[in-house]
């Protein structure tokens, strides 16, 4: 039982990392980013290439996050900012769909489509704690997600650029009037979200096999986690991801008949009975 919960949390931490990226972009720029997962896939391939050249694991992770931040900034300046001027939010959503194809195509072209074995960061026998069996890579995912959530919250709630990002999510017009440099904030948001994607990709790749389409399932699950958390709340994305991971794992064990369809059933139920999600913003306005 505890082993199941723990494994669920570990998988959930990947959902959380991905869902945070989706929610950050969605709540500030109003764009549903379907490429969040594939951004992680692309960076996981880069990490793989580095590891194969005997770059040490920690350096590969740092490098991938750095590349992610850079690619995110380039993506905003080079593509999203331009598209934003000429198309609607729906149009931008389609652009992110195109981005998934571009990324998957590039990954296939450079790295091939044969599934590759991505080495885990931590090897060795699982740990036994109070009867639960804890896989080392799972522990690492959870720890990484925990640290990232902590840092992200510090940034979003304690720094000017973070507070400004949240203000942009609430009222872009007011943010502009205050002179908040909206363009820089967009760059910050896309860079952060691309960086998050890289971490998610590298953490989950050893658990799956590395191929151009390997993050599609994660993208879908992260989307469900985001819906569960209310779509506009970063806290909701974190909790939604963990909750989904745990529930999914328990269901797969106790009710294996619905293990594949469970998350989809869940999203329908949430949308029907709790459309604001667990942490969705109810209108806080008064007067």
């Amino acid at each position, binding site marked *: 039982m505890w082993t199941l919960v723990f494994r669920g949390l570990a998988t959930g931490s990947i959902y959380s990392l991905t869902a945070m990226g989706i929610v950050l972009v969605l709540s500030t720029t109003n764009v549903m980013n379907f490429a969040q997962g594939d951004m992680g896939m692309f960076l996981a391939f880069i990490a793989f290439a580095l590891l194969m050249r005997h770059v040490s694991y920690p350096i590969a992770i740092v490098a991938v996050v750095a590349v992610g931040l850079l690619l995110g900034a380039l993506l905003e300046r080079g593509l999203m900012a331009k598209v934003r001027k000429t198309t609607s939010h729906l149009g931008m959503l389609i652009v992110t769909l195109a981005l998934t194809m571009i990324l998957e195509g590039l990954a296939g072209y450079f790295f091939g489509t044969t599934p590759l074995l991505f080495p885990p960061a931590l090897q060795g026998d699982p740990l036994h704690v109070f009867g639960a069996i804890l896989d080392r890579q799972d522990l690492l995912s959870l720890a990484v997600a925990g640290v990232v959530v902590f840092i992200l919250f510090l940034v979003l709630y304690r720094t000017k650029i973070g507070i400004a990002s949240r*203000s942009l999510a609430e009222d872009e*017009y*007011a*943010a*502009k*009037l205050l*002179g908040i440099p909206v363009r820089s904030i967009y760059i910050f948001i896309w860079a952060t979200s691309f960086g998050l994607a890289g971490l998610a990709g590298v953490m989950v790749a050893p658990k799956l096999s590395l191929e151009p389409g390997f993050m599609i399932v994660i993208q879908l699950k992260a989307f469900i986690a985001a819906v569960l958390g209310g779509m506009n709340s970063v806290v909701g994305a974190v909790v939604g991801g963990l909750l989904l991971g745990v529930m999914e794992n328990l269901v797969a064990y106790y009710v294996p008949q619905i293990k594949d369809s469970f998350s989809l059933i869940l999203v329908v139920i949430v949308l029907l009975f709790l459309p604001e999600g667990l942490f969705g913003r109810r*209108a*806080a*306005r008064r007067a």
Partner: protein
Amino acid sequence: MLNIEDLHVSYGPIEALHGISIEVETSEIVSVLGSNGAGKTTLLKTISGILNPTRGVITLDGVVIGGMEPSTVVRHGVVHVPEGRHIFPNLTVQDNLILGGYFGTAAQNSENMAFVLQTFPVLRERLRQRAGMLSGGEQQMLALGRGLMGNPRVLLLDEPSLGLAPIVTSEIFAIVRRLAKEHGFGVLLVEQNARKALDISDRGYVLVNGSIELSGASGELRENPEVQKLYLGGRNVDARL
């Protein structure tokens, strides 16, 4: 200080402002009266850089600010407190105020924060609460306070009385007037509530369909029969409250 000359603004092919000239001096409160759709908000949005003028010049102490980005205009000291307040409801009162001083140095901001909280003590009590939980009057105070965090040389106020009880409006207007006189910033006040606007302002302009029909000292405007008929609800109505 703030000079607007022959300002034209269009939405696509439709011109909304047809050559407007307005000036606001240091410590001066200037009101712009007009009915819905007269172009009052368009005027403020153009000054703050949300809209671009098609013709005309906007300068602050001789520096051209018309057609600049909002962030540039704010840095020059022209701060727009919009209609409907537009506070950030899910951010704390403190975070709302911090964003008002986005460009300030840390020292400036803490000084301004102390000043704002002294001016609106109710905000100090609610510093950590979400701004959406404030009453309408408190939200307007927050919007004003947030504007003051930007070290304004000119404050653009759009319908600050909207949705507020008369007594709250009077309180807020009194504070605006006192601050403008004490701290030497100009105020360009756009109001539907013409009576109250004329009460606190030094001069006024009457905007009709995108053109200025009348201007003058507030006292004169208040006595003007046409202004009385159109904006003050008839003759000899008690001008107080």
